[in-house]
């Protein structure tokens, strides 16, 4: 079960990033016909990022301690000390932006350039932070994996 949660966390993160790209492009081309799609996409961003937060948080609080112990004994302790410590707090930035996105996307963007620019900035930073966090997750995972690769055990490679 913990593996399903672990993989669902970045999956919803990626879906949130993709939905943010969708919001950004729709806002860039805001007109009278795509307002409904903008609101729908913004809602999907919120749902995906909130699910990524809850699933990742549940796994972090309940299961990460074992992986942390492995990472700290290995050749990449900074995968926890720097990358994980940063990631676990950096995640709150796209979370807050994702909670805010549908609020500002409720404005009629085709006739409101202020709201349109704000939506694009918010979606853009969800994308940038999301990509950084996905990359950080891969480094943390490798920080544990590299311990076994360097162990010399047959098949670990």
């Amino acid at each position: 079960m913990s593996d399903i949660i672990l993989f669902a966390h970045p999956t919803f993160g990626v879906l949130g990033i993709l939905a943010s790209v969708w919001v950004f492009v729709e806002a860039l081309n805001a007109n009278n016909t795509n307002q409904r799609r903008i609101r729908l996409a913004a809602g999907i961003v919120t749902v995906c990022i909130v699910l990524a937060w809850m699933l990742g948080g549940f796994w972090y609080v309940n299961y990460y301690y074992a992986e942390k112990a492995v990472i700290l004994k290995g050749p990449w302790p900074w995968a926890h000390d720097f990358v994980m410590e940063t990631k676990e707090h950096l995640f709150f930035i796209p979370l807050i932006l994702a909670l805010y996105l549908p609020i500002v996307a409720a404005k009629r963007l085709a006739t409101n350039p202020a709201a349109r620019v704000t939506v694009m900035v918010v979606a853009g930073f969800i994308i940038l932070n999301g990509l950084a966090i996905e990359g950080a997750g891969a480094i943390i995972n490798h920080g544990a994996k590299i311990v076994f690769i360097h162990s010399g055990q047959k098949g670990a490679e």
Partner: protein
Amino acid sequence: MSTTTDIGVIDGAAAGYGIAAAVTIVFNTLLAWIKDAYDPLNSFMASLSGHHWTTHSVADVAVFLILGAILTTRRVTIQGARLAMLLAGAAIIGGGGLALWFVLV
């Protein structure tokens, strides 16, 4: 006089919760710094919910929702360009501040 950054005003919940989002992002980084530097706070936050990260989550979301509701009720308005810069600045400073802290400490 109109300028190139004069794209209009944001009002209502979009203004109140937009400012609250920027404040919360900076608050998040400050709380991370303080609890990392001051262990009794970290322990206290852990005692509230079982894990310091869970309490940190609740604190961030609470600041965003409560401050957003207060600012919305007070009918705060803000220039669109200013709000966009405020959110971008908060995200850059907040994210950069976290990375810098955990590199140095």
